[in-house]
């Protein structure tokens, strides 16, 4: 058990080191920090002195080591545009993105579990067929198109819901501004969260359905029928519990995918989150902010994947925890 955790943790650290090295190379190549600092009007001599002072003439690895040390202390540089620490800027935008992911996850769980279970139990029912057809349609519509259609229908034509921004927010735990707790905020988050959920929801319906159908055909379920257990008990206790295992692994990966799709959703709805900020940073060539975003997103991906792997290892009795399952 301990070896498994250590191994998984080691891998996470290596991946983060690779990400930081890549990010650092980008910082090294993209833009000139000196020009952002002093502008064009300083003579070449003073530039060279400043360059020495800031350590820009040091060997590559020395500079990387310094970058890494600062990063570990939470210093990812200062944004050229906002004139504030890049990490602070991102942490300001993070709650908006988290709100969006929470709301989308809510839709996904609310619909995918009942529909998936129903479609597995009654594969020939018209509703199951409809759900499957709709899921293919859902997979085939890119997320930004769903968003555009929703905006056109509900914001432009009907004028029921706002098409951009976050609306009123409430501050929770003194740091987290959430729009999930005000009526105005909820009306703003409705369309973006539905668009974001629309990519993942169909995948989940299909995944839960196919995994559960597989479980329903297994020996122990047949035995449970033979034993005369009640239908509900077999479906919801014995079958559904065992479909959850693969759903957890895939679900964990989907959190990472959602972070990627937030960039698209936030752009369409001008949602003031991390993804929207990242695209603006790209357009302004705000290198420290770009690098900080890479590190933060990389960390989110690595942490979720590691946690999911560990949970899977703990929950699944068939995984041999000593080494790789064979």
């Amino acid at each position: 058990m301990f070896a498994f955790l250590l191994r998984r943790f080691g891998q996470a650290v290596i991946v983060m080191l690779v990400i930081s090295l890549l990010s650092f190379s980008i910082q090294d190549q993209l833009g000139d920090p000196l020009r952002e600092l002093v502008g064009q009007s300083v003579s070449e001599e003073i530039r060279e002195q400043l360059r020495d002072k800031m350590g820009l003439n040091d060997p590559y690895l020395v500079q990387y080591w310094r970058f890494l040390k600062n990063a570990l202390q939470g210093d990812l540089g200062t944004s050229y545009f906002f004139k504030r620490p890049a990490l602070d800027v991102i942490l300001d935008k993070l709650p908006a993105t988290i709100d969006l992911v929470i709301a989308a996850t809510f839709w996904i769980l609310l619909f995918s579990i009942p529909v998936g279970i129903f479609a597995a139990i009654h594969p020939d029912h018209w509703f199951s067929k409809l759900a499957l057809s709709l899921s293919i349609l859902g997979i085939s519509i890119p997320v930004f198109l769903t968003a555009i259609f929703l905006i056109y229908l509900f914001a432009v034509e009907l004028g029921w819901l706002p098409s951009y921004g976050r609306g009123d927010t409430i501050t929770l735990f003194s740091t987290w501004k959430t729009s999930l707790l005000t009526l105005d905020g909820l009306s703003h988050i409705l369309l973006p969260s539905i668009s974001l959920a629309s990519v993942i929801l169909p995948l989940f319906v299909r995944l839960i359905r196919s995994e559960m159908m597989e479980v329903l055909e297994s020996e122990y379920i047949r035995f449970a029928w033979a034993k005369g257990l009640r239908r509900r008990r077999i479906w919801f206790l014995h079958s559904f519990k065992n479909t959850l295992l693969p759903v957890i692994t895939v679900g964990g990966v989907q959190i990472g995918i959602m972070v990627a799709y937030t960039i698209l959703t936030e752009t369409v709805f001008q949602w003031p989150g991390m993804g929207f900020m990242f695209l603006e940073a790209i357009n302004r060539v705000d290198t420290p902010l770009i690098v900080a975003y890479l590190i933060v997103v990389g960390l989110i991906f690595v942490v979720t994947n590691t946690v999911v792997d560990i949970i899977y290892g703990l929950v699944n009795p068939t995984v041999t925890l000593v080494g790789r399952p064979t």
Partner: protein
Amino acid sequence: MNFSLERMRRSPVYYSFINNKVAMVSAAILSTLLLVSILAPFIAPYDPWDQTAFDIMDSEYPPIGSSGADDRFLLGTDDMGRDMLSTILYGTGISIAIGIFATILQAFMGISIGLVSGYFGSRLDSFLMRIADIQLSFTTLMVAIIILAVFQAAVGLNSYERYALLMIVLVIGIAEWPQYARTVRACVLAEKKKEYVDAVRVIGLRPMRILYRHILPNTFSPLLVISTVQVANAIITEAGLSFLGLGMPITKPSLGSLIRNGFDYIFSGSWWITFLPALVLIVLILTINLLGDWLRDVLNPKIYK
């Protein structure tokens, strides 16, 4: 390979195809789209890539049938006065081309790595599969957005537009190799245990020849199934990138760049600039996905999961 029409007609795939209306209709629509986009230079009424061929005075005509339409433009014009029909025909071609070339690159890398990984096994195998796991966890869209964004910021917008097509194909192609590698590896592991592989090994064939001539053909059906999905995914990814302004430039637009361009105008009521390319994009992806689903049901590769 003695391939004949008669043999094709007797195959279960053909039988299932003519009995499946969804698959037939999808195939018909998809081949029509393919055909018109290949023939675009000949059948399109205007050349949308030629800056001198359109006039800003013609901008934002609605499609024929709505009020204020112009007879010259069947599907209306966009904000620059370009004929929508022509831009959509050319754009469909670009989207399909990117989807296909990116998938070929994925297949080439993934199949090579998967074969080697599955056949030689041991440490190399676990190393390669770890890398594949890690790469997959960073979803293609994310990787593509970051690489293209950084590239765009580094070389500037103007030179970026020149290399956009190549960059998109490379990024989507390289980022998705694990899909193929995993499938091929799983197939190789299953095939390796069979007697015919032992037989050719006893004859003394070299491993590379065994891999490519004897094992690879037997992994064909799962590969066909994931290839359809991969083409559809590549097209979606490209559309997303173009929508973010990281894909094809508006001077040589794909369907995604057309949608991005039209998005600014839906608030003022010019719906056709966005919705017509959007419709084509959805139909394109939907037909590929429906065919992929049908193929999966027919070929039923158990290893694919």
